[in-house]
């Protein structure tokens, strides 16, 4: 929760990062990015541009083939698997396009299980989950199961899950991709608002209109950054 002083105001840093999965295709080529604490960044690109790979590298789910990655001040390349798991448990919140909620389990339990690996006692987890669900406007849907919720509501549960542990960094992969435009707008507004309360937000999208709502946009093509614009 406490980012600590080690990162000097830098939440995410990729230096000369390349990633390939064997063969000629390079998912990332010599990517250099620095994202400051509290910044809100959209990574825009067509499918196959490497933006999802960038997110998995930023989220420490994958290590780069070469280059240097620092997340919350931690050197990802040198860290052990268990250290990275700990980093993800405490400092990184993921929001996926497909929600990835557990069926047959209530919203509160879904959000609480997002903090399962933090070592927080279950009572505290449930308390934090309730609070987070209220923050995303689902205080009246605590005991509902995912099947009983609309798409927008499900994504809000997923956002609550990412936020409940008050992570340092939120990584969102096409969070509005499965939603109609109205719920998409609401979810996006929610992410902006919650992130502004104290987290760094990196969001991946192929949609320029969504990217427009971010103060900083990183454009990708064929694994390379082609533009890094701030408004």
């Amino acid at each position, binding site marked *: 929760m406490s980012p600590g002083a080690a990162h000097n105001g830098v939440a995410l840093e990729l230096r000369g990062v390349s990633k390939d999965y064997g063969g000629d295709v390079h998912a990332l080529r010599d990517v250099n990015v620095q994202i400051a604490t509290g910044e809100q960044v959209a990574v825009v690109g067509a499918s196959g541009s490497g933006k999802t790979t960038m997110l998995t590298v930023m989220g420490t789910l994958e290590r780069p083939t070469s280059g240097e990655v620092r997340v919350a001040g931690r050197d990802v390349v040198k860290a052990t698997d268990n250290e990275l798991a*700990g980093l*993800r448990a405490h400092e990184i919140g993921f929001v996926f*396009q*497909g929600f990835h909620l557990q069926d047959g389990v209530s919203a509160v339990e879904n959000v609480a299980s997002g903090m399962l690996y933090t070592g927080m006692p*279950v009572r505290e987890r449930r308390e934090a989950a309730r609070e987070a669900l209220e923050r995303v406007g689902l205080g009246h849907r605590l005991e509902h199961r995912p099947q009983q919720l609309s798409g927008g509501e499900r994504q809000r549960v997923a956002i609550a899950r990412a936020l409940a542990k008050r992570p340092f960094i939120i990584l969102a992969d096409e969070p509005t991709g499965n939603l109609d435009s109205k719920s998409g707008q609401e979810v996006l507004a929610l992410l902006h608002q919650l992130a502004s309360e104290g987290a760094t937000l990196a969001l991946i999208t192929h949609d320029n209109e969504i990217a427009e709502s971010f103060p900083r946009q990183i454009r990708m093509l064929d694994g390379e950054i082609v533009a890094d614009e701030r408004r």
Partner: protein
Amino acid sequence: MSIAALRRGAAPRERVPQDTSRLAPHELFGVAVQGLRTRRLRAALSALGIAIGIGAMVAVVGVSSSSQASLLATIDKLGTNLLTVTPGTQFLGSAEVLPDTALPMIGHMSAVENASAVYGVAGAIVLRTPYVPSEQTGGIGVDATDPQLLHTLGDTVSSGQFLDAASESLPTVVLGAQAASTLQITKATGHLQLFLGGTWFTVIGIMKPAILDPALDSQVFIGLPVAHRVFQTQPNPSTIYVRANVNQVNQVSGLLAPTADPQSPDGVTVSRPSDALEARAAAKGQFTTLLLGLGAVALLVGAIGIANIMVISVLERRGEIGLRRALGATRRHISTQFLAESALLAALGGVAGLIFGAIATWAYSLAQNQPMVIPLYVLIAAPVAGLAIGAIAGLYPATKAARLSPTEALRSS
């Protein structure tokens, strides 16, 4: 710095506890339970395989222990201190004869509590009436004996009474259990008579089955004085039954032959009928081993079933595995989760199997009218065996799950 670390005497490079990923054992249990609960039918079906295997083994052990226990209880009740003395067979097969002094000599041994003899009555055929053809003996033989026999055998009568000091001189007869049923006599009322070698004998009693020497069941017994009078029976015993002092059975057993026939002790055979029953109990144990082997095969099939289901489960749950990794689970957390699910599944199967097996044992014991016995170790071994089998069956799928790339969660949407 955590309090625990301070107590340990802080290491120089202390890791901040907040940065580690952790999963307490009880949380792991919760995750495993939830994993099974969301796939109930599948869990139940794959646990069934283990339940059948363990159930079969529990039933085999239970049924054999129960019948063994009932045999041993019988042996206990009848005592292992009964010895029999019979004439052996001489060289060239001619029968030996016990001297008429054998019974009083044995009766005087200090460690002998009780001794009785039976004497074969030659030429006596048992018939309901004189009109029945004399060839139809029904395999029933006639023995003469003393009133002590019933007591020495530890047997009782099911109806009427045994011979006594008065009736042994009168034409009265007591029937062995099998002989009574062959003659279709169920009660000794004192009014019924049998035609024994030309003389009417009154039926005064029917014995219960003589478990230690079942050969007696197909005999009928008359008193020695009347046998001597009517059939000129010789006072050479065909079998002497001896109750020895419980603590000196072996010594008595060794002395019986020279005591019975000091001139030719080699012509005397001494045996202990309870040995045969004990051998039967042991034989039941042998049979159990074979059936247990069959149960183990069923269990192996069940284990393969669980491994199979878990492999499929891992493939299906790639998304969940990726999500858990994204939420901070280590590879070890993932593998222990699948291992725990599989072990829990099989342990539940083991408990169910224990219940099936106990019910089967109970039903069998009820039908056989014998006490139900399930050895205590089975109660512990059944669920533990399930747990161990599940853990082994889950080893490969768990490793497979832990090796999966965490990016699957992002891809499989």
